[in-house]
């Protein structure tokens, strides 16, 4: 029971990271970025190649400092790869449509097309079979509290996602870029009259979300290996998490991910059917839409963070 709870919390942290990308873009553009799953996938592949060419087939380093070094640089590499892909998506699948003031439907279709294209391009170029990633640290059970096992991986994820989220929260609420993002989310037209470069702000929103998504991809790659379809499921669940926390609400996305993880994994203890987790998550999504459409913390369109 407690084991499932712990698993839920730590998987939920990854959902939170991905959900941030959804919620930021939704806050600014009022659009579900369907191509976000491919940001995650790119992050995963970047992490794979980075670790493959640095650690290779050697066993994971035992030294704390070198482990830390690999994790930090890996997250950076994956995050930057995710940022690049998010920017490319924004440039080619969104900006031409925005210039024409296209209807929302066109954005959604173009985004799903871009996602599909990237997915299959990676499948074509890097093979269609899943592959394990070299490990930057020794994943072993550290402590056991009341029957729940805490592995090294859990702690790494906890630390990394907390740091990333605090950093993001700081960027969105304290910096000039964050203020521009919030201004555009509130009222793009007025913001542009006030001298905010709307196009660049939208780009930076995608970039921020892309960094988080790429970093999440790194952790997924370490844990489950990589495959060209690896982004789909976490991204779907992350969107659920974003809705659960209240879309457009950055802190909501963080909470939503963890709550979704708990809600998803704990019932498996009683049902013993691992595949049920997706069914549960999806039911949760429909139930939120039925009973509390604004999510746990309330949606904050135009008032991000």
């Amino acid at each position: 029971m407690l084991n499932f709870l712990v698993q839920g919390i730590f998987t939920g942290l990854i959902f939170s990271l991905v959900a941030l990308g959804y919620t930021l873009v939704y806050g600014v553009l009022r659009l579900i970025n369907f191509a976000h799953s491919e940001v995650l996938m790119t992050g995963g592949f970047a992490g794979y190649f980075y670790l493959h060419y640095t650690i290779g087939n050697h066993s994971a380093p035992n030294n704390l400092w070198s482990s830390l070094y690999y994790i930090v640089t890996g997250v950076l590499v994956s995050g930057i790869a995710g940022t690049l892909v998010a920017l490319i998506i924004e440039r080619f699948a969104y900006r031409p449509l925005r210039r024409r003031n296209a209807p929302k439907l066109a954005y959604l279709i173009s985004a799903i097309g871009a996602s599909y294209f990237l997915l299959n391009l990676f499948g074509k170029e890097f093979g269609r079979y899943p592959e394990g990633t070299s490990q930057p640290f020794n994943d072993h059970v550290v402590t056991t509290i009341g029957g729940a096992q805490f592995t090294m991986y859990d702690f790494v994820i906890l630390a990394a996602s907390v740091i990333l989220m605090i950093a993001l929260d700081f960027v969105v609420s304290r910096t000039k870029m964050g203020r521009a993002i919030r201004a555009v989310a509130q009222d793009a037209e007025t913001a542009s009259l006030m001298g905010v470069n709307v196009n660049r702000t939208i780009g930076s929103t995608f970039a921020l979300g892309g960094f988080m998504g790429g970093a999440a991809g790194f952790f997924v790659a370490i844990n489950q290996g990589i495959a060209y379809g690896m982004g789909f499921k976490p991204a779907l669940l992350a969107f659920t998490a974003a809705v659960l926390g209240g879309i457009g609400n950055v802190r909501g996305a963080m909470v939503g991910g963890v709550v979704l993880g708990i809600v998803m994994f704990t019932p498996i203890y009683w049902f013993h059917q691992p595949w049920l987790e997706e069914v549960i998550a999806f039911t949760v999504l429909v139930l939120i839409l039925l009973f509390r459409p604004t999510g746990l913390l309330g949606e904050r369109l135009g008032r991000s963070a």
Partner: protein
Amino acid sequence: MATALCGGLLLAVMTGPEGSITQPTYAVRESLFTAHVYGYIVFGLVVGLLLTYRAKVKNGSWRQIRSAPRRTLVDRAASVTLPARLVALGVTAVLSLFAGLLFADFSGPVAANKFSWHAFAHQFVFTRTYGYLALAIALWFTAANQITHLTRMRLRSLSRLQIVVGALIAILFFSLAADPFLPPRFALSSLNPVGKSSLFHHWTTYLWLGVGLVGVYSYLRKRDRLTGSTAPRRLQRVAVSPSMRMISYLGAGFIAIEAPKFLSLYWQISLYQQIGVYCLLAVGLNIVVGFAGLLDLGYVAFYALGAYVTAYFSGALPLQPPFHLNAFMVIPFAVVIAMLSGVLLGLPTLRLRGDYLAIVTLGFGEIIYVLANDWVQVTGGSPGTGSVSGFDINLLRIHYSWSPANPLSYYYLMIGVLIPVIFLFDLLNNSKVGRSWAAIREDEVAAQSLGINALKYKVMAFAMGASTAGVAGVFTAVKVGVLFPNTFVLQLSITILVLVIFGGMGSILGVLVGAVFLQWLPAYLTFHSYFGYQQTDLYLYIGALLVIMMIFRPQGLVPSRRRQREFADAESGQGSADALGPITQEMPQ
């Protein structure tokens, strides 16, 4: 410019070989550092030039070279001199000849790999090729007629003769075609006494004779009326009289019924499995995407539901039904179940936001796949179901069962379903319901203030699309015989979406054209592998096609006039052209 160049290089990578994770740069290297990449670079540059030209003209920094109003091809042909007109006639002749030969080629035996002259020449052994040539000549006659008519070349008496003779030839030809000496065909043999094989003993002869006579009669009447009228020329051409429309329907029906008899077995099977079922699916999704302006990414879930309901009622699932049902009887069940799940899914989602529907359906598609794949006690899981029983009729004295050995029988059944469905949806679109959909698409707030219950009509569209997919599921299950969960993946939903978008959302004709073309092309390329096409790359192209269509032509290739105007309006800031929720705030520019 640089973008287009990159596009050309990307195309080279897209058509290049498959890579693997162990050699990550292999595929890119192979496709970029070989000679054929120059072709793609040139292609990219040309596209880039065209795009730049278009953009510059559009924003006015370059003056448009062609300042005259846009004229149609026929218009232009009408104004040119006689020699040029003869050239035009010659060109159309060559083009239609080529079309006929191409059609003959792809209906012929499967060529080994590439297009080969040997295989092409081999076509002429078959009588069928001459049939296509005859069709091509008839096509040319029509085109020539059109041109001579517009140029007031006084050939009316001759053209009347042409039509009559042509029709007679066509009737004779197709009557011969219906002759039972030709191998695969659909003769309700159980209804017919055996042994009557002569031309005039066959009922199809009289059917086609009647159709042909009615067609010729109404066409001639139409021409007389038009040439006698004083209406401006342009109006004469644009107005489509009911008889003309009737003729085109009859002609389409004629071709749809007769042409498949000449196709090779591979194409006869594809006609049903690859094209017919997908036409039905696309027409259903068109209601959701085209008519109601919603996005459904889990469309395949309802298709899967229909298929598994069929399997359930033929006892092919581990979970046994209380009674077994004939596949025809399953259709109402499939419709009801798909519709119910559509309502259950649509109601909570659409109440709030239209754009959530896309991701909720995406999730639903995944759930249905997971259930089919993992809930072994009920669905049989990934090894697949047992065998699904087929269609059969046992009514009074008529006994007929559809067997996989005769793919055309399935095809005719599909035609029999598809045509009523198309007419029904067309009627619906022109009724109060269709007008409500249009109103909601164009401006949801205004529509609601006029008393239109937006939620009701949205859920209605969603549920109707779902039930159509359910019917398509029944047809697939029966033909395939054994269901595997792997058939019902997200990729299929996207594929169907592409069929709708490519042809033109909201226009049934467009959707059908898109479905037939996009389903035919991969099936054709699979055996002719031009341009290094590999079947695994299909979805890569589909994704790219979606983005490109949305950027350059969101209304599709054969758009409905209303939808096209809506897109143009939305781009100039009026209305929304979709039903993804009321406009709360303008999109940032």
